[in-house]
């Protein structure tokens, strides 16, 4: 086997960082070089996206070599992409060039180091999504902390060191237990292959539970799930705008990705066992995040807490463990990347003009910045889940998935989560109103310049995809469907053996009429069509 397109996608940014290392300190040259490599990575990922076969459930474009050994511990360089990871890869390669564009003017010092860290970070994130070897995964997972730590710590706001250290330690603490679990799994099964492990892990629940929790802690911190979320507002507030965009847009998704790939994929039985506490944490996150967001004075904090709320939705959808819920969760990860990333860009634009993010400083900005008002409105509506824009597609599927979930088997989670939809409208529109509407009475706001061409250039692509996913999500959801179907089918099969009570529950849910047997057949057909192809 040879190095393939996935290595290209992953390491083009790193190559860019190395090239920049040897460049003279000329900002223009450095920025252009960074842009070229990030764009090249995006284009390669686009090629991969187009060649990706949606009907296949298994890993594609696989690259697998022996890499190194420590005693018996064999680590492979093993990459692959499937329906679960492909959209996240695309999100990463898509957002990075936009973020670099948004740094064009907003980053003023140490451009060279900044661009290197950004590209380094991109490689780390892509590696996390593409690794099929546990140790490789872990390396990428940890290594990516370093550039982010510096991006917050060097280019951040007044309390940047506190925020950076908090971010770093919090994440480290979480991942340590995961490392221990990885070692345990290797000792048990003599393999680090993620695909294999998903199929062969079969441990007594008493043991599996602990492994699950170890992984869960690592990912829950990253997501973040309530009450492990307090690093996030600090990190966001202190990070420079591009850092916030990447943090919200991609980094948090590593947590939800991990939950799906490992917590649910490896340990479905434990996922079933812990479903209720997790659902409770998810809905607390949804409502709590929304309520706290409602009363923030600082716009970045407002968006940060809205993230907690949105990611609560994702977690709720994933742990519903049915096709609708997981599909909703996956597309919502992308949606959150676009809309929250967009909101951070919006806040960044205001901040650059006024050097404050206090909502009370603003009012009536629509008048001085009409173009900005349009973009802000569209992204805000996307974030509050308006049908026709992307957010709704994810939230609807998540809510429907959780409502019909055999795992939860209780509509209460959906109902509580649903209040998050109302609260989202409240905190987003109230914020929008206070900033954009009302009389333009603050002198400092009267002469604000509307969006520059550069700003429009990096916002338009986001809005384009916000609308695209809203109107025709099939382009994206079809990529993940086969994998998700196969995964759900595998999990149901596995749990069926051990949990005969499940059958009753399905029947209990579905009224026993002729009608229902009809729709049951339809369901069966659907599953047959997407037979596992691994």
């Amino acid at each position, binding site marked *: 086997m040879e190095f393939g397109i996935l290595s290209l996608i992953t390491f083009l940014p790193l190559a860019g960082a190395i090239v920049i290392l040897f460049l003279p300190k000329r900002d223009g040259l450095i920025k252009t070089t960074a842009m070229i490599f990030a764009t090249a990575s995006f284009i390669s990922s686009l090629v991969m996206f187009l060649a990706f076969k949606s009907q296949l459930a298994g890993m594609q474009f696989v690259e697998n070599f022996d890499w190194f050994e420590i005693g018996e511990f064999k680590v492979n360089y093993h990459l692959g992409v499937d329906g679960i990871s492909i959209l996240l890869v695309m999100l990463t390669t898509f957002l990075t060039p936009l973020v670099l564009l948004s740094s064009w003017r907003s980053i003023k010092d140490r451009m060279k180091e900044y661009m290197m860290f950004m590209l380094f970070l991109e490689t780390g994130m892509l590696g996390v999504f593409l690794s099929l070897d546990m140790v490789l995964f872990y390396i990428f997972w940890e290594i990516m902390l370093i550039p982010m730590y510096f991006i917050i710590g060097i280019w951040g706001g007044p309390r940047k060191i506190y925020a950076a*250290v908090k971010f770093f*330690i919090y994440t*480290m*603490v979480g991942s*340590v237990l995961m490392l*221990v679990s990885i070692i345990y799994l290797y000792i048990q099964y003599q393999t680090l292959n993620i695909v294999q492990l998903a199929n062969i892990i079969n441990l007594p629940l008493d043991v599996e539970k602990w492994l699950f929790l170890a992984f869960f802690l690592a990912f829950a911190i990253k997501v973040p799930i309530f*009450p492990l*979320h*307090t*690093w996030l507002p600090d990190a966001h507030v202190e990070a420079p705008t591009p850092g916030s965009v990447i943090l919200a847009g991609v980094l948090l998704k590593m947590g939800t990705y991990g939950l799906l790939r490992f917590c649910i994929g490896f340990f479905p039985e434990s996922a079933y066992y812990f479903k209720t506490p997790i659902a409770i944490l998810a809905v607390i996150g949804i409502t709590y995040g929304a*309520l*706290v967001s*409602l*009363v923030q004075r600082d716009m970045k904090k407002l968006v940060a807490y809205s993230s907690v709320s949105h990611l609560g939705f994702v977690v709720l959808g994933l742990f519903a463990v*049915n*096709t*609708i819920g997981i*599909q*909703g969760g996956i597309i919502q990860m992308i949606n959150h990347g676009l809309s929250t990333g967009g909101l951070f860009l919006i806040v960044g634009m205001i901040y650059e003009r006024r050097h404050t993010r206090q909502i009370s400083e603003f009012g009536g900005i*629509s*008048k001085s910045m009409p173009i900005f008002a349009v973009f802000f409105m569209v992204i805000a*509506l996307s974030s509050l889940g308006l*049908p*026709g824009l992307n957010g*709704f*597609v994810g939230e*609807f*599927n998540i*809510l*429907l*998935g959780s*409502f019909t979930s055999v795992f939860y088997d209780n*509509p209460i989670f959906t109902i509580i989560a*649903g209040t998050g*939809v*109302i609260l989202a*409208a*409240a905190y987003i*529109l109230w914020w929008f*109103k206070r900033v954009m*509407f*009302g*009389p*333009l009475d603050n002198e400092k706001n009267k002469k604000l310049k509307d969006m520059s061409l550069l700003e429009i250039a990096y916002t338009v692509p986001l809005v384009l995809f916000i609308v695209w996913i809203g109107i*025709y*999500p*099939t382009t994206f*959801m*079809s990529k993940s*469907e086969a994998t998700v179907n196969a995964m759900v089918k595998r999990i149901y099969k596995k749990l069926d053996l051990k949990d005969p009570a499940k059958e009753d529950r399905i029947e209990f*849910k579905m*009224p026993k*009429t002729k*009608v*229902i047997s*009809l*729709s*049951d057949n*339809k369901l069966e057909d*659907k599953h047959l069509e997407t037979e596992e192809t691994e």
Partner: protein
Amino acid sequence: MESLYPLIPLAPLGGFLINGLFGRLYKKPIVYTVGIGTVAISFILAFHAFVTGFSAKAISLFTWISAGSLRADYSLMFDPLSNIMILMVTGIGLLIHIYSAGYMSHDKTVPRFFAYMNLFMFAMLTLVLADNFLMMFVGWEGVGLCSYLLIGYWYEKPSAANAGMKAFVVNRIGDLGFLLGMFILFSIFGTLNFLDIQSLASFGLDESTLALIGIATLLLFIGATGKSAQLPLYTWLPDAMEGPSPVSALIHAATMVTAGVYMIIRSNFLFVLAPDTMLVVAIVGGLTALFAATIGLTQFDIKRVLAYSTVSQLGYMFLAVGMGAFTAGLFHLLTHAFFKALLFLGAGTVMHAMDDELDMRKMGALKKYMKITQPTMFIASLAIAGIPPFSGFFSKDEILYQSFIAGVPFSKVLWALGLLTAGLTAFYMFRLIFMTFWGDYRGPKEHEKHIHEAGNSMAIPLIILAAGAVLAGIIGIPHFLGGGNWLGNYLEPVLAKAPEAVHGSVATEWILAIVSVLVGLTGIILAMWFYKEGKFAKSEKIAAKLGPVYRLVLHKYRIDELYNAVVVKPMIWVSDNILRVKVDEGLVDGVMVNGSAKFFRKLGGVVSKLQTGYIQTYIVFFILGILILFWLLF
């Protein structure tokens, strides 16, 4: 021609995109042409579909969402119900767009206005033509968005900005009900398509399924109370009057607010399976009708009177559909669209003439100056007051008759509520007419010279709508008056038969009709007696006698204040002082996170004073500690 039908919703969408993206680049006449022309295309096509009686289960444009067993297409369904609805929506929409060209001609951001109005038309037509609940919901929230944007159109006014936000958020509360209702339906039937559910629901369903359908329909109805401004979620509609008058006419009177009624009629096959829900619908409708009418009696803001009147009339429609009289509900929906749109547009020309004055106490004697507005509004008021032969008489009478004979509990009580409301309606409408057009002019003197009738683009829609307000009743003239009840026959294929269709005698029909007309006339005569001379001594005397009761009604029963005190303020207070400060900053971040950090820092300091950089300290201790823990466990 049929192949062009997708343009019925899509043409206004095109108008939205063109005016929205490029409207600043060209002159106003082009903005008007695009804005009005695209709606005209929709209207012509809708008219064609209506006349030819076009019927299609689904013209599918594309699959919107597909996940697992969920599949929702953007597809359009044509049947008698949607045909007559789109005819009304595009027809009245077209007239109001034409009116807007005159009304908004002095506005600086006309392209934005027409873009929003076109977007509204797209969303509303999507809602009406949807062949499944999910697409209907898309239209449902879409019209809500346009309502938000248009209420807050003059966003620099804080009251307008607040009203827009309130409308959206209150509607969202209802929308959650709609969503949950959909989820239940999906979990029962495995589809959200109207026709599929209809045919599945026609197999006999067992008890537990029927109970679930009862809950689902109730949840859908909660959605309807939001969108159609019924108790307890009606509070946004009066505030929505902050929007320009054409918006009030189109969105907050004729079309969007009737969406809840339309949704229930569209899913009538489910509602008839849930008699308890139907009863709730009828009761809420009846109570809302009366409740809003009483507020209407006391208001002085011309548009607010009309707003409460709309809430009240929508209550009638829910009363009707709750009784299983779906045809009567739709009938009133259609006639109401004409006379209420007319009233709002009339109020708009009055505002134009009066330099945006809304307080009726400062008007008076306008009939001298407004030779078109006055008679057309007068006709509309006769129609809403239920005076024959105007359209409102037939539809309101049908509702009252149906509730009188319906075999459901409280039907006589609800009939009495409806009858009382009819009297109140006649009173407050003619109070409005007399205060505005009769008596002496009470505004600032120097302004009287400027009072003028509106230009043609505003006057002509008034005249056409007035013709509709007179004639629209024709479609539903009942048998006892020599009509053929055309609407009833027309809708027959769409409507499920109500469980027990009760028929009263012709004599009952006559007596009820006469009673309701007498009640209406009484209301008018009372209003005349109180207000025709333009002096308020008589009414003020009564107000003084009623004292606190009057003030309570004048202040709209202080429901807004109640909601603020019970829901909004506590929520914000708790979020701010408890959740944000105590829980988040205090407990979670303070005690748990930074507390443990401090603990480890102290511990680290005790164990080894050599360690200086704190990241390493923490990491080493955590790794060690955790490894030991793990080693002990396994």
